[in-house]
């Protein structure tokens, strides 16, 4: 495929230029848009974003983007949520009160400290590089040593243990283990750092500033999905 196109959804939540620049670097075309029509006709979609969950969902509603995004996902178009963009896909969030999400993936968004006991030492927000690890359990819930979980996903060229860049205070907690594509350890706890179900991908980290590993991931999304 030559010059794959991707619509980068602009809903007023953070800087989209780094992402657009990486897409161009990889030979793709990144179209920054908040137009429901453009989103409806997109070949593939990225929902990026940083900031508060409540503001994010309100901004999507104000711009009438909720239904176009859901429709695009239903029609099996490759979809990638990054950071807040992934969190918005969940059922609900506990960030500054309870907020309803897009409910594309069942589960919640919780602050780092919540499910964790007090005797852990780390700073929140989690800022910096950390490792993507194949979950300890596979999709059937069995413990596994070597996993084939990342085959045919955006992580297919990535090896367990590669480093990516995070900036976040909240993490997703999916209801089904099966959607957890990777885990990452921070401050002695393990959290879900990427999700996958059918055509839907999400990553808590920022592939656009994650060096060569990030480039591999976005390249796979552009060319193989």
């Amino acid at each position, binding site marked *: 495929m030559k010059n794959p196109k991707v619509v980068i959804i602009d809903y007023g939540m953070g*800087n989209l230029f*780094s992402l657009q620049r990486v897409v161009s670097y990889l030979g793709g075309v990144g179209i920054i848009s908040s137009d429901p029509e453009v989103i409806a006709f997109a070949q593939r979609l990225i929902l990026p974003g*940083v900031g508060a969950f409540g503001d994010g969902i309100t901004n999507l509603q104000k711009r009438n983007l909720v239904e176009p995004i859901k429709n695009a996902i239903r029609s099996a178009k490759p979809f990638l949520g990054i950071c807040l963009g992934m969190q918005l896909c969940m059922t609900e969030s506990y960030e500054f009160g309870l907020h309803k999400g897009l409910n594309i993936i069942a589960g919640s968004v919780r602050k780092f400290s919540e499910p964790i006991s007090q005797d*852990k030492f780390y*700073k929140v*927000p989690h800022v910096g590089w950390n490792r993507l690890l*194949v979950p300890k359990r596979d999709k059937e819930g069995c413990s596994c040593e070597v996993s084939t979980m990342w085959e045919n996903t955006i992580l297919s060229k990535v090896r367990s*243990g*590669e480093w990516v860049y995070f900036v976040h205070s909240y993490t997703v907690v999916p209801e089904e283990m099966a959607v957890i594509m990777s885990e990452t350890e921070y401050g002695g706890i393990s959290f879900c750092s990427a999700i996958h179900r059918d055509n839907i991908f999400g990553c808590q980290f920022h592939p656009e500033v994650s*060096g060569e590993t990030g480039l591999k991931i976005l390249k796979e999304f552009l060319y193989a999905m």
Partner: protein
Amino acid sequence: MRQGMLRDIILLLMGVGPLYENGRKIMNPIRIIPKLEVKGPNLVKGVHLEGLRVLGKPEDFAYKYYLDGADELIYIDVVASLYGRNNLLEIVRKAAQRIFIPLTAGGGVRTLEDINNLLCAGADKVAINTAAVRNPAFVKEAARFFGSQCIVVSIGAKLRGNEKYEAFTDNGREKTDKDVFEWAQEAADLGAGELLITSIDREGTGRGYDLVLIERISAAVPIPVIACGGVGKVKDFLEGIKVGRADAVCAASIFHYHQLKALPNRDSFFKEGNIEFLKKNRGNLDFLSGRLEPAEIQSVKQALLDSGRSCRFVNNFSEIDSREV
């Protein structure tokens, strides 16, 4: 009693919490960040932020650092010429074409428009110093508008006797009468995402971080602290992390002067500013009286790993695979 438990108890009493779990040390990865000070089109370096020597073109250094495994890069325009000739925006724009790690840019950031322009040019974060001191509400406004993750408050600190430090602005030139610890706390409360703490006393001297300064701020604020100013040897990074408890360590001279020797094109700089050092004394570091031992990023990271600390090690990640580290 399992290994480390006594230390846990002591740290717990100090309000720090244990660093061990199941007998295994919990060590969050440390970021290594080269700082590139620019003046006009050139990369420069001084001592105590003064007596700037031209070292070369910033893009030559930046790209090498990216390939060497730098975790982020910080650009500071020392003359705050955001819109002048050969401005910071241009330098950032050039860097962002082929460098895919977080880029922080600062020097002369005064308005939301300045921030937006830097982000458009390719910066991921901006460092704000003078404008933040003059108008602390700007930090709050910027964090609300762009998100805390992209607002780094940069604080220049000078020791004023008896563990008292004063914040300085305008690249270390102007005093403010602001207590550094109070200002650091306030900046965090205003919504800064990270703090870049530079000891002006140590800056460019190779005498190591001001560990008292760094440790006191790291312990006081909930947000990540980037230590800056004074690194001369690889061991200084380790002290900044172990004693200073910094979340990220930043340095300039140690990397730049190493890179200076390695650069193939010896005339790769623009002929303006103080270029005498490059023309006549290239590689002569006598002015630092042997306190500077240039090193590359990989050797710093190796030293970190050897001392049991975690960091992103690019050339090696496939070998240190998975959870059995």
